[in-house]
């Protein structure tokens, strides 16, 4: 698997399996088809900000770069531990690694992890939606949703499957927003 950058094969398959329970491939494409694990793997490899026209990525500089190195390092550790925890619970309960379990068993393991986590106070409506203070399960949900619904330039939402799931007639690429070519006016009241 040449796509992997940060995760090893077991970690990749474990995260992919977990993400596939968060947004399942039931009546249409889910996290697996969107490539949310690829999205996360790239993020944990330091892909932070796309260029504004979507033509590639830019490196944070100066103090920003230091902060991102620190943040990514902490996230890597959180994922490594979180994946170990999923496998430990899976072996204890079912005698196999998480990725080998049946979907219903995976759901049960995830529910236990969710329950055991520290969710803290619920965010206020429209509060900045960052990763600050999130436990492993909340991170996993956030990153799955990010990989499903964010711009495909970041490696998820392949073929816009997330947007098509919603019925969001989004821009074909970030370049279209950057240039001002994409407009939502057809979805205003007076649109014909």
């Amino acid at each position, binding site marked *: 698997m040449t796509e992997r950058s940060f995760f090893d094969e077991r970690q990749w398959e474990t995260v992919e399996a977990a993400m596939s329970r968060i947004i*399942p491939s039931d009546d249409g494409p889910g996290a697996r088809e969107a490539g949310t694990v690829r999205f996360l793997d790239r993020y944990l490899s330091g892909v932070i900000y*796309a260029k504004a026209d979507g033509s590639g990525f830019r490196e944070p500089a100066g103090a920003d770069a230091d902060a991102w190195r620190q943040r990514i390092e902490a996230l890597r550790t959180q994922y490594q531990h979180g994946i170990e925890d999923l496998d430990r619970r899976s072996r204890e309960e079912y005698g196999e690694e998480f990725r080998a379990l049946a979907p219903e068993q995976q759901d049960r393991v995830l529910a236990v992890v969710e329950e055991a986590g520290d969710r803290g106070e619920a965010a206020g409506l429209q509060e900045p939606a960052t990763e*600050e203070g999130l436990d492993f399960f909340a991170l996993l949900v956030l990153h799955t949703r*990010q990989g499903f619904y964010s711009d495909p330039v970041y490696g998820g939402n392949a073929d816009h499957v997330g947007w098509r799931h919603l019925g969001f007639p*989004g821009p074909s690429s970030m370049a279209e*927003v*950057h*240039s001002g070519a994409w407009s939502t006016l057809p979805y*205003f*009241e007076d649109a014909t």
Partner: protein
Amino acid sequence: MSAKRKPERASVCIIGAGASGATAAKALTEAGVDVVCLDKGPHMRAEDFSGDELANVNRYNLWPDPILNPRTYRTAADEDPQPKLFCPVPQMVGGGTTHWTGWVPRFVESDFTPRSKLGDVEGAALADWPISYADLEPYYDRVEWALGVSGQAGANRHEAPRRRGYPLPPMPTTRYARKFHDGCATLGYNSYPQPIAMLSQPYNGRPATVQTAFVQQHGDPTGTKANVLNTFIPDALATGRLDLRPESYVHEIAIDEAGRAKSVVYQDAHGDFFEQEADVVLLGCGAIESARLLLLSRSARFPEGLANGSGLVGRYLTLHEYTAAIGAFDDPVYGWAGGGYIAAASLEFYASDESRGFVGGGQIAAAGAGVPLPINFAAPGKAVWGAEAKAADRELFNHVMAVAVLIHDLPQETNRVELDADVKDAWGLPVARITHRAHANDLAMGRWTVDRNAEILAAAGANEIWRVYADRITGNCSHQHGTARMGDDPDASVLDASCRAHEVENLYVIDGSPFPTGTGINPTLTIMANAWRVADLVRSRRGAGAPARSAVGGA
């Protein structure tokens, strides 16, 4: 501290190039005054922005990075403060206007006399403003016409008198705004297009605003939304009198033997220190950071922080809480169209009515919910993962909208900004520690108004309604005020009516800090109008400068 370089002395040094600083820079430079403006962050341009929700909303392309710029928060003085990205505002040239949608309603006349109108409220420290609506009206007008605002004068039955209409007609109507108008009409409530800093038509050489979905909390790649990055900053630079220095982090405002502000000590991106001397210093970093900088600027004369002989710097911090009823409709409302905030609003519940069980009130308005994409949104009570969550995303996405209220956060002495005892930022200085607990009055206001908002959604035909009641003030609007109150009594306020420090005759604070109360209306237009008013006073006090170079600014 290493050796400091001393740039040429400035007439006026403005700290912060956001809503207030850019407004003052425009007003002063166009009136012939030379200005040095320092901003902590970068000077991003339209070409640096895009429809990138991850970068802008989830990451720190625009939000302050909490590793570099932490804050701490607690609800009472006996609690341990916890790190929290509390009430953040972009710390860069453009400030909050960089990522705003641009709701720019004016305050109403009663907003300036809250103590007289509402009386004594136990636990609250209401104060009348030392200025009136009439003092600001000329400046509201100037800002609206210089920025470019689309609105419909006269549509708001409760609006204060205005000398003329808006420069531009309202934006096209969104489907979610229409639902709000319909619900209000059914219930007999007045509603109107929310005045917005966008261009419904070409204006002053700028094309009409491009309506993407990536607006709220995003920078504008087309330069067609009205913010100070594409208006007041270039206006001021065009005079040749603005020396704008981004990535200049101010450590302190130093004073001379007479207790006047002498200089501003800052550090550039390379870590080099500079001492910028100035005749006058204007502080506009937002109410939290401005209070922090005053508290950091200690001296033998001001051991508790600059201009803080009263001990009131940082106190009476007021915010807004955005809380809402959310409704789902059978037909699509496309809550993401135009970014979700091409809105309709109402002041129907703004006037105080004690029979409701609380005093005061907040503006209500329609908006999208969880926009533009539901990365961070799940309808209250819905599953957050699994097949049920996935189905809910699809069922709700094009069909939900919010009717929200801005909760008026009453000022309390104990709600304040201090310096944290332990946590320091990337520059080694103590960070802002927020202590804030909502007044029971305000939570009751939120609850009551969310119930009314739910009725509006029901009247508009919503098939399912969720009520999101606030149980605390999280600072989710990025609106912040009150930490350096203006008033006539030096023992009860930090600034006088001209926003000049009672104790420092050449120091002014021009952001939301001077506001004695937070009101229940978006503050930025009023911050800008007040900054322009203060800039005019600064100019007149220092004597006539060179002739004005722009009719817009010098009018």
